[in-house]
């Protein structure tokens, strides 16, 4: 059986809250992070369910072939196999952060990445044409930028991000990365190119902790019009304009009478830009994202 993989880019249009539901810190509802590296991510399981709904327009047979049939009975009783039962052909991987928008005193915000984030992204992007070279680690704190970055303060030649002042160095590979990421979303190229910044890994892990969006929310008591007792909480999210990268994989369809090759499965899953509502707090507008793939041939067939 041959599997094919294809990377995708997630672009957040509104704050994105993929939460853990519990907290040990001062933020009541923090976002999910990878255990070892503390990098924010969105579990593939949340993406798959939403993608399934977004692709309702597919013919019934193909839809089931991609995502697997829905259980007829929920719970443990539904575990029994029935005639024609099969697994979905599509595998949805986690989406990992690749660039975090960080507020800047000059140029509104920078899309900040780091050698580690890019190296992990390179792993996912393997197989695509023109993936930029790895960026060398450097002694921090230092920010590397491309030509014409709008977030560099012209008088000081420094970057003022949130609470940090960072020295700046020009590096052509940074621009190459911005251009490469923008190939999945061509109309965003200017915006990404002029704001893309690569900081050292230590600075990045500081920003991952401190530069996310934290909203204070309350519940108002409808009889008094003031905050209900004990109903004040803080909620963390990845800000709008965040970029994440993940991988979709697929095998051939396992559904009888719906023959689809692995490539067809991926084409149907990614065929046009999808608007998805991902993560928690969706009914107050959190998590509107678009999912896009890089154009061009996919030669990453693995046997």
């Amino acid at each position, binding site marked *: 059986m041959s599997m094919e993989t294809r990377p995708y880019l997630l672009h957040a249009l509104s704050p994105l809250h993929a939460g853990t539901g519990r907290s040990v810190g001062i933020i009541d509802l923090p976002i999910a992070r990878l255990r070892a590296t503390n990098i924010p991510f969105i579990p593939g399981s949340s993406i798959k369910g939403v993608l399934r709904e977004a692709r309702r327009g597919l013919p019934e047979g193909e839809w089931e072939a991609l995502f697997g049939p829905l259980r007829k009975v929920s719970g443990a009783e539904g575990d029994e196999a029935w005639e024609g039962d099969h697994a979905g052909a599509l595998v949805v991987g986690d989406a990992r952060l690749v660039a975090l*928008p960080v507020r*800047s005193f000059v140029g509104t915000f920078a899309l900040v990445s780091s050698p580690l984030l890019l190296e992990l992204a390179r792993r996912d992007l393997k197989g695509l044409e023109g993936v930029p070279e790895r960026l060398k680690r450097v002694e921090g704190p230092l920010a590397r930028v491309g030509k014409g970055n709008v977030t560099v303060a012209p008088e000081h030649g420094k970057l003022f991000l949130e609470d940090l002042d960072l020295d700046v160095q020009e590096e052509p590979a940074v621009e190459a990365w911005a251009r490469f990421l923008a190939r999945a979303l061509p109309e965003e190229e200017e915006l990404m190119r002029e704001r893309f910044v690569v900081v050292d890994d230590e600075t990045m892990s500081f920003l991952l902790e401190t530069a996310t969006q934290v909203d204070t929310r309350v*519940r108002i008591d409808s009889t008094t019009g003031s905050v209900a007792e*004990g109903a004040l909480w803080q909620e963390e999210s990845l800000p709008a304009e965040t970029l994440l990268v993940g991988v979709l994989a697929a095998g051939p369809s396992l559904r009888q009478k719906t023959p689809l090759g692995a490539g067809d499965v991926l084409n149907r899953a990614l065929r046009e830009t999808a608007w998805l509502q991902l993560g928690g707090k969706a*009914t107050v507008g959190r998590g509107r994202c678009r999912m896009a793939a890089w154009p061009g041939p996919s030669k990453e067939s693995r046997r």
Partner: protein
Amino acid sequence: MWLASSRERWGRSAPEQAHAGLEYTRGAPLAVLRNEDPDARENWLARLARCKEPARYAHAYRRWRQSLHSPDTLCFTVRALGRVLVGHGTSAATRVGLTLQHTWGVPVLPGSALKGLTAHYVQTVYGPEADDREEPEREPFRGTTWKDTRPIRAPGALFRRLFGAPDLDDSTGKATQGEVIFHDALWVPAEEGRGAPMLARDVLTVHQRRYYESGGQEWPVDFDDPNPVSFLTVAPGGRFLVALEAPGDRPLLERAEHYVKEALEHWGLGGKTAAGYGRFAREEPMGDHASAAARSPAAVLQSTPVLAELKTWLEDQRARKVGQRPQFQQLERDWKERLLELTGEGRQAAVYLLKQYFNLKRGEEQQRMEELLARLST
């Protein structure tokens, strides 16, 4: 690396380059924080009030607008009749906060504020007046009843559909998600209409300080020194794009729209509504049509999910060489309803698309096709 004195000097960067939210919460000059010089505070706020929307914001807004072209969403713009103050309880150097969009630093009406306001409005205006009185026609609008932090009574049927309901402890009601999505209402950039200033300075003067500080123990008298507190609010005249979404249920969506509009007009959003802040008027969708005329059918096709889907389907049919008549029959069966749900430019684009792919020569199919095109064209 940490707060250097050079920070004080970026103050000269152009107002369309700055991030108003970041400067307001994290960038106050030391003189303001130490309260040394009243002029410093005034100058600083005046500078912030001159902030304009960032250079690329209009692009981000257009893309947001495009993502909302679907029959499941309903958008309208509202104009602020007075000042708006959302999030004044959050921390800021001036001790009065202000919620701005995190990434772009432009004013925003958070989806959570819109949803909370609308829920509150619906249960107060349409819901039962008291817990015990029998009012069957008002029952669907009943809000969730809370005791401290626990819900003790499930909301009415319609309230539950619009806003969802929490789990009850005694398992008489299960939690459900609200069916309507209240998106953040984003600031409408200047190029989409009359450009209005984003922020404005405001002042609140406390006259009876000792009365408030003692919690009413001391009498309010006129001998206290007035204590003016200056802060920022969203300026009057700003426009916001309210966007609601409810997959597959247009009537519910229109109901939600009606309540949001009423609540924004009558009650107002955010803080200090008792002093007239936060009132909005819904704008006639005139501006929409003007901009719609400028969009080509191809652009509409791309941004409307139903039509993009239809186009893929049609291409597929053509590739498989399905005959025109069976293809049309299937179109009637699977697509007609969905196409008729479209409005305005969506319908025009649908006509454009169908004319491209269908060329029925005769028979009743041809007549039915013409009927469909006529219905879409009205």
